[in-house]
């Protein structure tokens, strides 16, 4: 589709235009911590709904704490309400609202994760469609913004992505020097947004400059692993009980931060929230790192030690996902590395496996 450019200083105006078009606009916003709150407080960058272009950090900072995941696959949502009266139980459908949404300033890794989630929740091949996810996905447009300053935990290049990849994007922004941003329209949904921003867009973008900019950023990545041999090594079932799992994973405390932060993790649980004899059946995020995740009613737990749970996570990303969904399970955003309280590093596993595979 087409390309264009936009001035970086016009991003605020762009958001204003989108808000004026009655879209729900999600953009990164920094909540700076106050000096008077002491050294424990730190700045918090999150994706939140913005009502105007005045206060946004599109293209600034690195990654927001939360990914786009929570805007498509909600942290919690009711499936239906019920009411028990006498001997009868009424099932009352819930009325979700699916506002048209545009998420601006999504990093390429997060955008790529949407494809992975899509494969789980709405791929026709899976034989099942999650109506909530699909409807949200249909009404959400992703505006990606290429990275300019990856940090030490980023490793997207190790999983076939790059700081400027546009997988999963509808509209893609890349800084190409000065105040100029290269705009790529990738889908029809992206086109619709581009049309709304028409007054700010100028001419055609220089594809060469964009690629040069992307390549320059790619150079800055320091964490590079070879993911190619992992799948084969994992496929060999002898390696399921390799000593490496326990050695690397014994420090894992099972906090689940990695899974909740991960833009592709998608496990959920369902409970009934009762209020007397009425209530809701609610779906909410769960994590394979919790000890009761695989706890059987009998009391037996096949993943009885924490390292086995982390082994599952690694397998899920590099074996199960590619096998089942023909999709990359890991997008290399590095959130799990940054967020881990005990410095359990998925790339250490990758390196170890690569080394083992190489013999």
């Amino acid at each position: 589709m087409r390309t264009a450019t936009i001035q970086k200083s016009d991003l605020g105006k762009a958001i204003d235009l989108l808000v004026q078009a009655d879209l729900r606009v999600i953009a990164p916003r920094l909540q700076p911590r106050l000096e008077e709150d002491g050294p424990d407080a730190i700045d918090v960058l999150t994706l939140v709904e913005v009502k105007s272009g005045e206060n946004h950090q599109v293209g600034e900072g690195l990654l927001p704490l939360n990914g786009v995941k929570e805007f498509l696959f909600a942290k919690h949502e009711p499936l239906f309400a019920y009411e028990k009266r006498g001997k009868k139980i009424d099932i009352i459908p819930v009325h979700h609202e699916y506002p048209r949404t545009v998420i601006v300033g999504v990093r390429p890794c997060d955008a790529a994760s949407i494809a992975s989630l899509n494969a789980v929740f709405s791929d026709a091949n899976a034989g099942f469609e999650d109506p909530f996810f699909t409807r949200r996905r249909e009404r959400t447009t992703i505006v990606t913004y290429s990275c300019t300053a990856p940090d030490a935990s980023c490793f997207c290049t190790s999983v076939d992505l790059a700081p400027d990849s546009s997988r999963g994007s509808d509209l893609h922004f890349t800084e190409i020097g000065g105040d100029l941003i290269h705009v790529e329209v990738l889908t029809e949904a992206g086109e619709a947004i581009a049309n709304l921003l028409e007054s700010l867009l100028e001419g055609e973008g220089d594809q060469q400059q964009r690629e040069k900019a992307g390549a320059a950023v790619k150079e800055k990545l320091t964490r590079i692993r070879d993911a190619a041999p992992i799948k084969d090594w994992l496929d060999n079932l002898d390696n399921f009980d390799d000593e490496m799992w326990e050695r690397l994973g014994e420090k894992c405390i099972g906090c689940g931060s990695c899974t909740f932060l991960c833009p592709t993790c998608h496990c959920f649980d369902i409970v009934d929230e009762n209020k007397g004899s009425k209530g809701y059946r609610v779906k909410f995020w769960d994590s394979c790192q919790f000890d009761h995740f695989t706890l059987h009613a009998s009391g037996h737990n096949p993943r009885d030690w924490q390292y086995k749970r982390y082994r599952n996570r690694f397998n899920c990303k590099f074996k199960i996902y590619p096998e089942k969904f023909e999709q990359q399970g890991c997008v290399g955003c590095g959130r799990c590395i940054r967020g881990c309280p005990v410095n359990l590093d998925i790339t250490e596993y990758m390196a170890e496996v690569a080394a083992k595979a190489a013999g």
Partner: protein
Amino acid sequence: MAKIGVFVCQCGNNIARTVDTAAVAKDASEQNGVVHVEDYKFMCSAPGQEMFKKAIKEKGLDACIVAACSPKMHEATFRKAAEAAGLNPFKVEIANIREQCSWVHDDKEIGTAKSKDLTHMMIERIKFNRPLERYVMPLTKRTLILGGGIAGIQAALDLANAGIEVHIVEREPSLGGNMARLSETFPTLDCSQCIMTPKMVEVLDHPLITVHAYAELQKLEGFIGNFRATILQKAKFVIDDLCTGCGECWEKCPFSVESEFEMGLVKRPIIYIPFPQAVPTVPVIDKTECPKILKDKCGLCAQVCGPDCIDFTQQDEIKEIEFGAVIVATGFQLMPNVYREYGGWRPPHMTPKKLTKKERAALPRSGAGRLVDVINGLEFERLASASGPTGGQIRRPSDGKIPETVVFIACVGSRDCNKGVEYCSKICCMYTAKHTMLYQHSVHHGKAYVFYMDIRAGGKGYEEFINRAQNEGAQYIRGRVSRLSKKGDKILVKGADTLTGQAVDVEADMVVLATAMVPQGDAEETAQILGIGYDKHGFYSEQHPKLMPVDSSTGGIFLAGTCQGVKDIPETVAQASAAASKVLALFSKEELQRDPEVAIVDQEKCMNCWDCVTVCPYLAIDRVELKDRNGNFRKWAAQVNPGLCQGCGLCNTACRSKSIELQGYTNEQVYAQITAFGGEFV
């Protein structure tokens, strides 16, 4: 799916006046799980209960709500009815729509709305009521009685005569207690020894009663029905079985010390029986004084002993015996008489203060300051007793002179918030009146003065007794005494007559103080051994001041006599018999049944922080080791002893992991009740 029946009671017009019971019933019928509702005039009446039972049987109800009066009124009634109809009684709950709704809100619309809400909450709650079975535990039908005074003796005889095995632990060498010290008893003036001694002998001869004289309770473990007592049998140095009580030894013993039984008025030998009528008549050797034991000198008693029953090598002995119930009858002491001990330098109502070492050193030990002829009630009893040190002649301690004028002072130490105890010692008015009579019967020309605050003579024949004492010549002066001092060989009593407003000085030959009755000096330690509660004075706490005056705060331990509070002899005996009947009721079944509303532990979930053990007021939670099937240690866990648990639920709240739960008030039940809370006003 639950099959709940809801029974709404109109209570005549009591509920129906301000609650539309039909509407409550209709609303309940629409609730999930409710399959049967009734709206009836008197649910607690015979036809009401019949209806209740019939519905349970016919509809196969598995839970019932009775929306009626307070559960305090009829919870038991309906639970019993349910049991009769084959439903577990703990599947019945009461929604209190009378005391807490219809009687307090006059507005029918509001009353109805609130009743509906209260019923909803109960409907949701009862879905989580588990059918509970009463705990059945073994029962050791043996009773431990602590103290061999009149209370212990009475309880022992009542129990033993009903066929229950009894062990009495008495720390003195003989049974009898304080009552054995008395000369005559009010209001009939019959001789204490005469009514006491036959009972003591009966106890000793009773095949079901074992007397552990000169023994102490060291430890009490276990719980109701299943106590295990550790009894320390102090060495008597006399072999019980061989001794015939002939008296050779104590007559020959060359040494003597102050007699405890005679309140130090005379001396006793070192191998001794406390008093001539002692039961058992086996002497003991006071090992703290005996030169043979201390320095290996003398040993005369052993030489004179015919049956050769003196054994200086005897050691203290520990006995462990199991009991099903305990009766505590440890009695009282009179407030110590500081006059005889320390001298008379302060007003009488200051007596109980414990002196500091310095004060004690400053006291006159003998001579001028010391008022030997100021004695307390029990000392007077000994002087008046026919078997006492003076053979029943009342002679004053200092020079043995027969006192011509005696002043009796009532309320010494009692009813004195500042320097004594704040309670009324209750028996002093009566025994002072008795003393005036005993004195005047013995010394016909003697003058008796009584200084008193009020006369409290509530009891059968008591007021008449006081009148008799006054008629017989005792002069009652209403007022307090400010000072006692020595004047020649007499005691100058400075007092006041508040009725005439005049100062009264009496020169007395002897002064008798009606000092207050107080708990035994080691009452608190004993309570801690037993695990029972006590008040600030040291009297043991009854479980309920009105309705359970005999039960201690711990199940299976009962109280008798003055260890629980001031009492006279008839009251003591009555309470002893009451305690005995409580034990009999407890022992009337072959096994012990306990209320199932106690805590239980999910031992897999328990993470053994022992917070529950710390908060449990009844020591009802044990720490147990769980084993795997090979018998290897697996983990620690808490375990509730349903015999001790009283169902307070403190552990339940303290437990963070919610692995301990109070049955009948479980988390699920309360949770359901809260979630059903609608709070709609109308």
